[in-house]
């Protein structure tokens, strides 16, 4: 009797794992990576704020301390505030990509008609947003997505039905992913290009370099009075760590570009597999694994450098991975 129960349980467990599970996993990973990409703007803001705090602490010192007023303090702000952030091209394009990935995942794992309708609405919203971001960034009137194709997605999603026929769901996902692929590829290229053009790494590196200079000045003035070797060593370690921060400034941007390129590549793999009618395959597993790995090691610059074949250092001591 126990064997019958076990067989029943295994059968049900098999049903619970839909053939679209890997699509859902892809969407989740791509969406998580999109979330990490936002951290580039945060890193820039934080570096700028740290620089401003250091600047004020160094400038309004000794005789000059009386010049520090609440008006002066009020001038400290993030270069990209919440309102500006919402309009930042990289942020907007990335948000649209993240929403698309999340909606795709939701569509793949939706358990009811209501969930499917919600995922479909989010999917249309994100595709429309991808269109808008693309047009604004590229200064073109041409839509990235053909709006008539959106109508065909709608038909495909409606066909899934209230009882959720897996065959129809797979058909809808296949249609959406294969149609979206060249566009996702273009929007990923745009994000990578914008990350390069904005020069955020230069701003981060220069802010950190300024902080290092002020810390060095401060250390030199303090070390003039007797300071035990142990304390001096601790200070040198702290300064060295700041120096490392300057050297690594570009790596976060490079890692972000690499992550966006990986999302593009994974989406292409997914589209190719779906075209062949494969909803689960070793290629999909491998590409999701790579995304998960990038997500897990985001911010681990040592791992990035270890995986880099050609490491370069410019005249300002900034490290970069020059692999093509």
């Amino acid at each position: 009797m126990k064997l019958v129960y076990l067989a029943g349980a295994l059968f049900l467990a098999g049903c619970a794992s839909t053939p679209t599970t890997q699509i859902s996993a892809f969407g989740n990973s791509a969406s998580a990576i999109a979330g990490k990409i936002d951290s580039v703007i945060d890193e820039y803001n934080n570096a700028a704020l740290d620089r401003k705090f250091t600047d004020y602490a160094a400038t309004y010192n000794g005789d000059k301390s009386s010049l520090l007023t609440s008006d002066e303090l009020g001038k400290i702000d993030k270069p990209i505030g919440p309102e500006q952030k919402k309009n930042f091209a990289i942020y907007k394009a990335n948000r649209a990509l993240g929403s698309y990935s999340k909606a795709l995942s939701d569509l793949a794992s939706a358990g009811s008609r209501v969930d499917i309708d919600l995922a479909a609405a989010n999917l249309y919203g994100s595709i429309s947003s991808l269109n808008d971001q693309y047009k604004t960034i590229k200064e073109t009137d041409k839509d990235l997505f053909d709006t008539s194709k959106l109508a065909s997605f709608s038909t495909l999603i409606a066909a899934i039905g209230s009882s959720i026929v897996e065959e129809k769901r797979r058909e809808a996902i296949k249609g959406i992913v294969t149609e979206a692929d060249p566009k996702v590829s273009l929007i990923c290229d745009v994000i990578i290009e914008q990350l390069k053009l904005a020069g955020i790494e230069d701003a981060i590196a220069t802010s950190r370099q300024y902080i290092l200079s002020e810390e060095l000045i401060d250390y030199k003035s303090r070390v003039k009075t007797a300071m035990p070797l142990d304390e001096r060593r601790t200070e040198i370690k702290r300064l060295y760590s700041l120096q490392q921060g300057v050297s690594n400034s570009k790596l976060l941007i490079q890692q972000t570009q690499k992550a966006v390129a990986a999302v593009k590549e994974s989406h292409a793999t997914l589209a190719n597999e779906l075209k062949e009618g494969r909803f689960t395959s070793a290629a999909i597993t491998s590409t999701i694994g790579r995304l998960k790995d990038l997500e897990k090691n985001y911010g681990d610059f040592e791992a990035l450098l270890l995986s880099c074949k050609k490491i370069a250092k410019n005249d300002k001591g900034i490290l970069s991975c020059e692999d093509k």
Partner: protein
Amino acid sequence: MPNETIRVNLVNAINEMNKLLEVCNDENQKFEIRIKIRELFQRLDRVIVATLDSGPPEFAEAIESLKSLTAKAIEAKQSLDKVAETINKAAEAIGKVEKLVKNVVGVLAIL
């Protein structure tokens, strides 16, 4: 790459001003250098989010002025009697970059 050109020259100028700050011994001059570094950073933060037009003559003037500031800061590190001159050069360069960024309507990253 107009933004890149202004950005790179701003970064070079700030970095050389930092180095000058590290070797300068006069507290009043250090105060002035810090204020100028702050003002250069303010322009850099705006260049990061703006699209600059490289067409007008002011663009080339700003680049030249930043290059001249960088060269003067390098010189002043060796002969500290040139610090005051460097601070004046910085004021001039900041004014020229300001002309470029103050009325920027089209922007690269802010849409």
